């Protein structure tokens, strides 16, 4: 099964932001194959969450492992039938391992988004 994780510039760590993450890691848990794709929403003026979510669902993933997720992106994922899981580690490898062992809980905390207010 294919899963996605937002990752930062190190390409080895989970990014604290979903919509503005620099890259997404697309991991195939069956084959162990990892691909890194750019997040075109990084430079988006508005609607970054939706664009980032679109990028992820276009990869035909079944799950997103993320530390947080905004409301608009969560709506896109819900409509696309993609499950969101809460990451607990910064390390990509630990995160994938925890997911495979069924140790990650569903993401509960969907924030209302920043929408141009820089964290208001």
């Amino acid at each position, binding site marked *: 099964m294919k899963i996605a994780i937002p990752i930062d510039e190190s390409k080895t760590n989970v990014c604290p932001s979903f919509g503005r993450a620099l890259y997404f890691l697309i991991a195939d848990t069956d084959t162990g194959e990892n691909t890194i794709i750019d997040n075109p*929403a990084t430079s*988006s*003026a*508005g*609607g*970054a969450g*939706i*664009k980032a*979510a*679109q990028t992820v*669902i*276009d990869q035909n993933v079944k799950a997103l492992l993320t530390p947080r997720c905004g409301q*608009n992106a969560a*709506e*896109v994922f819900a*409509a*696309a*039938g993609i499950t969101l899981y809460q990451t607990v580690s910064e390390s990509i490898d630990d995160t994938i391992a925890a997911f495979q062992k069924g140790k990650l809980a569903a993401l509960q905390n969907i924030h209302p988004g920043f*929408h*141009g207010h820089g964290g208001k």
Partner: protein
Amino acid sequence: MKIAVLSGKGGTGKTLVAVNLADVATNSVYTDCDVEEPNGHLFFKPTEISYQPVSMSIPTIDNNLCSGCRICVDFCRFNALAFIAGKPVLFEDLCHSCGGCAMLCPKSAITEKQNTIGKVMTGNSQNVTIITGILNTGRASGVPVIREVMRCLNNKTGLAVIDCPPGSACVVMESIKDADYCVLVAEPTIFGLHNLQMVTELVQLFHKPFGVVLNKCTAEANPSESYCKNKKLTILARIPFDKELGEISSNGEIAVRCKPAWHEFFLKLLDIIIKEAGYEADTHNQR
């Protein structure tokens, strides 16, 4: 003549300056573009009030006609459309009403409908006409309301004083677009200076003649004043940090109607602005 009053942050005294400037003019239109929280009308308490609704067009998608070609989704630069399970899904709050999706749809599956997002309130208070833009709670962008406010303003005569929203984003640009002169209100703090720099850059980008009103001035160092002096910006006036003035405002009263000294102060400020605007216009013509 249109004077826009703006500042990089809230609470610097935009409304204080705008309301009092409008009130000392013989015939004026106070125009509140701070549509998320318009408060100038609380001072003027206008009568003979009328309302006009403001709507914006948003697309509606007929999924029976949609072929799932994705052209609309890829076109939308505001990311208001997502492509889920083979069909476009609209995120209304992000739509800027450009109409591009409906125009491009090869199956004519997208039509536009009107959505009410706010209203414009017009009323009178003595010699002042008060136009207030009001954005409905929960709406994302006030730009369409400000456009309607400006349309109403253009039907009126007299000196226009435009009370802008705080900051330097789209809503501020929309508010100063037609202004002949910009008044930047600044606080004597480092934070105030940072925000003054932002709006200074904005009005320069728009090639607007402008000057600065330094508000809440004390005997202490004033970073905003130092900035003006360094950059050779026009300082139009210095309003002292004055408890009585604060009290007048917090009681919802208009300073120039309460105290002759303030009337004199703002009349002088208005004269300076008109003179500056004329002077600037001349220098522009010579270029």
